[in-house]
């Protein structure tokens, strides 16, 4: 098994001496958020592994929706892209992308949407568009895809991303997908489903959002991670939950599923 969560080279490379990598802990902690099932809008990359792990563990009844136009996917291999043919064969329904975004997402049938991010701020606003100036970007990122629609129209939004000072920023270079405004009363009046992310899971910790301020709050530390390590990997001083806890470690079965069935090629690292 290849250890290591150092995708952006920010949060330290892999081996923590605990028998699993930071990426694996992040995937497991995210998958557990899906306990109870429902309709889940699956994104590319890590969310793909997370949702398929959840379906094999805590949420067998989970209905996987892919923006490529698949409802009730039952993939036999881990798809590299969200338009893989394995998503079609054996699924419940295949529809046009208009139907997927209009009838399923915009009409409010999606319980959970998963988003990744290049940058996130303390209120869960997300940038996946550019680093630097839009007109002359330092790094041109992919842009919205369906992210802006998911942030606005999914009932709940989960964010999964690696944490570092360049990704957990004080100020976004570009707001692709809206999060909390900092005024929950105002957010409740906005009139759309999504009112900012409810959970952020990183390779170090798990965060929830304060009901009074809409601010990201450290809720759980992954095993072996100290509060200082978390602080060193974000650009602001985080709020900490009064009942700060440790994330339960991955089980042998969770690790086996990731390593042998879902990601034998090590996409996660």
């Amino acid at each position, binding site marked *: 098994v290849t250890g290591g969560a150092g995708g952006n080279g920010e949060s330290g490379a892999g081996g923590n001496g605990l028998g699993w990598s930071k990426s694996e802990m992040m995937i497991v902690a995210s998958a557990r958020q899906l306990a109870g099932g429902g309709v889940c809008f699956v994104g590319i990359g890590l969310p793909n592994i997370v949702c398929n792990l959840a379906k094999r563990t805590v949420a067998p009844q989970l209905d996987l929706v892919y923006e490529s136009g698949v409802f009730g996917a039952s993939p036999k291999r881990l798809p590299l892209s969200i338009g893989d043919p394995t998503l079609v064969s054996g699924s419940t329904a295949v529809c046009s992308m208009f139907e997927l975004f209009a009838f399923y997402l915009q009409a409010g049938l999606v319980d959970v949407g998963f988003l990744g991010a290049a940058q996130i701020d303390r209120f869960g606003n997300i940038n996946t568009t550019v680093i630097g100036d839009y007109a002359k970007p330092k790094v041109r990122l992919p842009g*919205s895809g369906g992210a802006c629609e998911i942030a606005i129209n999914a009932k709940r939004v989960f964010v999964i991303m690696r944490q570092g000072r360049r990704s957990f920023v004080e100020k976004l270079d570009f707001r692709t997908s809206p999060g909390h405004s900092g005024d929950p009363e105002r957010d409740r009046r906005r009139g759309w489903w999504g009112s900012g992310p409810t959970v952020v899971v990183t390779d170090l910790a798990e965060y929830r959002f304060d009901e009074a301020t809409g601010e990201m709050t450290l809720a759980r530390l992954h095993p072996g991670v100290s509060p200082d390590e978390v602080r060193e990997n974000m650009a602001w001083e985080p709020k900490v939950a009064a009942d700060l806890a440790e994330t339960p470690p991955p089980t042998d079965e969770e690790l086996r599923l990731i390593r042998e069935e879902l990601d034998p090629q090590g996409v996660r690292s």
Partner: protein
Amino acid sequence: MSKVATMKDAVADLVRDGDTVAIEGFTHLICFAAGHEIIRQKKRDLTLCRMTPDVIYDQMIGAGVAKKLVFSWLGNPGVGSLHAIRRRVENADPAPLEIEEYSHFGMVCRYVAGASNLPFFPIRSYYESDIPKVNPRIVPITSPYDGTEVYVVPPLNPDVAIVHAQRADVNGNAQIWGLLGCQKEAAFAAKRVVVVCEEVVDESVVRADPNRTVIPGLIVDAVVEEPFGCHPSYAQGYYDRDNRFYMDWEARSKDPEPLAAWLKEWVFGLESHRDYVEKMGAEHWDSLRPGEAPSGQVNYGEYA
């Protein structure tokens, strides 16, 4: 009358310098063969539209056919970046590339508006996003019925849409299964339509299963039979996505030289997609062949 044409003739006749061109297909049924022929014929100043530019537009933009890109997600799915496009956007290298950017739903609805002869299409997206700030064509309006604020996107009517289908008859009635993307919307929105297919079939095959017809010959100008025409994208039930090719593209497009070398070897150096298929080799195509999973049959009923 048969609309069957060669790719060379279809592109020469129907794609003109300066055109707005949409080669759609979401991961599935992306017609690389048409993109390669456009490169080979050295078309210029195109405005290329696609939700996900994908490796095909990285190749085309790297080859210099386009002046502008209209899109909603700019990446190599599951792999990383499209470096030829990024070079032009980040460093104007070797020339600037104008961009016009939407979200996925916004792009889909632009085609829907275009296909429906509507002046705009309203969606519940873009609230408190910076996207409308950098694209003034995305505009908030108030519903005249309940006062709700929605954003509207303008119609997109390409000069040419090129769509790939599993099968079509000689009149261009095209049948697709698997991911449908927004090919139907793009085709109905376009002024000219090229249908490329894995196989041309008898009209009776189409009429035996009319629910599967996505694009009617009514709107089609040319039909091109081009087996494996989507590679490295895929055609459900015919061949798998060549994920290895997508992963290898990262190194090929990272710098201009390997990209130019690839274009020379696999596009300019070949006469047609038939040559590409032959050069790729039978063994490669065998490795991409899926197992069998036929659909059940339905009874349409005989009502004589």
